[in-house]
């Protein structure tokens, strides 16, 4: 009897403990899962809240909301064309500048620079990514926009635009279609679509270049060495070996930068001029989705507020798709590596 008790009592305690541990483990697992699902909830919620907030505007204007360039609180008619156009054009300019520069930075830091220089320069460039966007905005407004107005803009309007100061049309403006319109402007200020695109480019260069640099370093050394052994130059190795090997991740990095540029608010708001007008000129002020929301939302009511929410929904959907492509592209290289 006694011996029997001695066996069952600890056994029961153990069983109880095992059961308690199993229960605690389950509860703990559920708690963790709940927290992880909050990430999902945040994304769905942001899409849902802006769609719900914009339902009046979507319902009232229908598909015409996308095609209309009207933005008139007086008559309460709103269209998304001007801010959507501004967002797309500033981001496109930013990419046109940032992609080649970032590629150059990544090539220099992974293939050209002496080893002792690589880490400090890379950290310095990454420092640029850590500067808050409001600082870019202030620099853009007080330093870059005046510089742009004094030095870059007159040159562009005189040599490329169709409204030069001295009235004499340059050869380019007279002979190449569209260029004159792109660079013709009467506005004397620096704030413009092009200036905003340049500030955005400076902002996204560190993002794109650090992704590119990271993926360039994943290229197997034996691949590069084989190419060098066949007599390739450094540039040929970069262009014919490194770039094809990392193509999908490089495109992913570019889309990541594009996602940033599309949704950036502060840096753009300061430099874009916030004019709700559709102008073909890159030197005229414009508006982007984010800058329109930042400028108008706190004073908006009724249909205007709904239209701003609808704009936010459009922005969210577009950036979501861009970032989705970016992550899928980046993942393809990761799979290749894991194989």
């Amino acid at each position, binding site marked *: 009897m006694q011996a029997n008790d001695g066996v069952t009592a600890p056994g029961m305690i153990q069983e109880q403990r095992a059961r308690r541990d199993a229960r*605690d483990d389950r509860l703990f697992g559920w708690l963790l899962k709940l927290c992880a699902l909050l990430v999902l909830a945040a994304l769905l919620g942001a899409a849902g809240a802006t769609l719900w907030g914009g339902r009046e505007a979507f319902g009232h204007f229908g598909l015409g909301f996308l095609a209309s360039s009207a933005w008139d609180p007086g008559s309460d008619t709103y269209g998304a064309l001007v801010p959507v156009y501004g967002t797309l054009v500033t981001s496109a300019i930013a990419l046109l500048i940032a992609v080649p520069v970032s590629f150059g930075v990544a090539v*220099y830091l992974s293939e050209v620079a002496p080893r002792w220089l690589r880490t400090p320069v890379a950290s310095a460039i990454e420092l640029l990514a850590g500067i808050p966007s*409001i600082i870019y905005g202030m620099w853009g407004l007080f*330093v870059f926009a005046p510089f742009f107005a004094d030095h870059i803009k007159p040159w562009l309007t005189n040599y490329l635009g169709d409204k030069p100061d001295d009235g004499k049309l340059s050869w380019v403006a007279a002979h190449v279609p569209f260029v004159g319109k792109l660079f013709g402007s009467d506005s004397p200020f620096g704030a413009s679509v092009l200036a905003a695109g340049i500030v955005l480019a400076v902002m996204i260069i560190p993002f794109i270049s650090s992704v590119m640099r990271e993926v360039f370093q994943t290229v197997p050394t034996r691949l590069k060495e084989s190419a060098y052994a066949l007599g390739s130059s*450094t540039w040929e190795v970069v262009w014919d070996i490194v770039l094809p090997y990392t193509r999908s991740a490089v495109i992913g990095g570019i889309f990541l930068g594009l996602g940033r540029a599309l*949704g950036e608010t*502060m840096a753009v708001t300061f430099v874009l001029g916030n004019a709700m007008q559709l102008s073909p000129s890159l030197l005229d002020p414009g508006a982007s989705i984010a800058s329109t929301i930042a400028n108008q939302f706190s004073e908006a009511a009724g249909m205007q507020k709904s239209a701003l929410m609808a704009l936010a929904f459009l922005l969210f959907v577009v950036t979501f798709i861009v970032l*989705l492509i970016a*992550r899928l592209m980046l993942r393809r290289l990761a799979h290749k590596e894991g194989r």
Partner: protein
Amino acid sequence: MSALYLRRRIANWVALALSGLATLLGLAFLVWILWETLRQGIAALDLKLFTKITAYGEDGGLANAMVGSLIIDFIGIAIATPIGVLAGTWLAEYANRTRLGEAIRFLNDILLSAPSIVLGLFVYTIVVLPITSLTSGNTTFSGFAGGVALALIALPVIVRTTDEMLRLVPSTLREAALSLGVPQWKLTCQILVRAARSGIITGVLLALARISGETAPLLFTAFGNNYMTLNPLDKMASLPQVIYQYANDPGDAMHALAWAGAFVVTMFVLLLSLASRFVLSRNKVSHE
């Protein structure tokens, strides 16, 4: 030297020179931006910045904005840290290589670069509007709502670093603990999180650096306030929001104050990222 060889050499030389120029261009912009912030910021530094509130306008300081920023950032980090650490733990320990886990890890990376202004509007809808109707308009915008908006921005940063740091913990540590009969929750809380502690702290510091410069989501959540307040249910000023407001003001004295604020924010952010690097590098040494 054949013509082809010469052409290849020239192409190589030009391309590499251009890559060096691109790097110089990037560095030039960094120096330009930092130099202007330092020059104009230091010129405007003054003791009244820290003692007077924004209600005095040109003769005032930024004291209420600094206090407001600290409170809002603290609320944001206090909400995001527990949720982010738990969610990151779930990704690394429970759902690694499951379909739902992979999906959430993927979506977290998207949330990481989602436009902050849209997250601000989301918080406006789920926090500011309900509070307004609950208190029948007595409370509208609040520092708390601003904190929630910043928490949404900090969350993915913390989730990601926690996830990555926990996956770096050697699995022998897990196997050793499990073989002793330690339940999984105890293993996670007492062993794994401790092993990855400095990595997780790095993530929190990075998240703090990220949110302390955020402006856009605060415009429609914390709104701004010209007076000092410690009550998180009041409208609250924050440094980035005051900088935004002052930079748009036509007065030069206001611009100087905005530069001073920009200088303070930049220094804070740079110090935080330095600190996070320091924490991480110390951890690496201790593992070796």
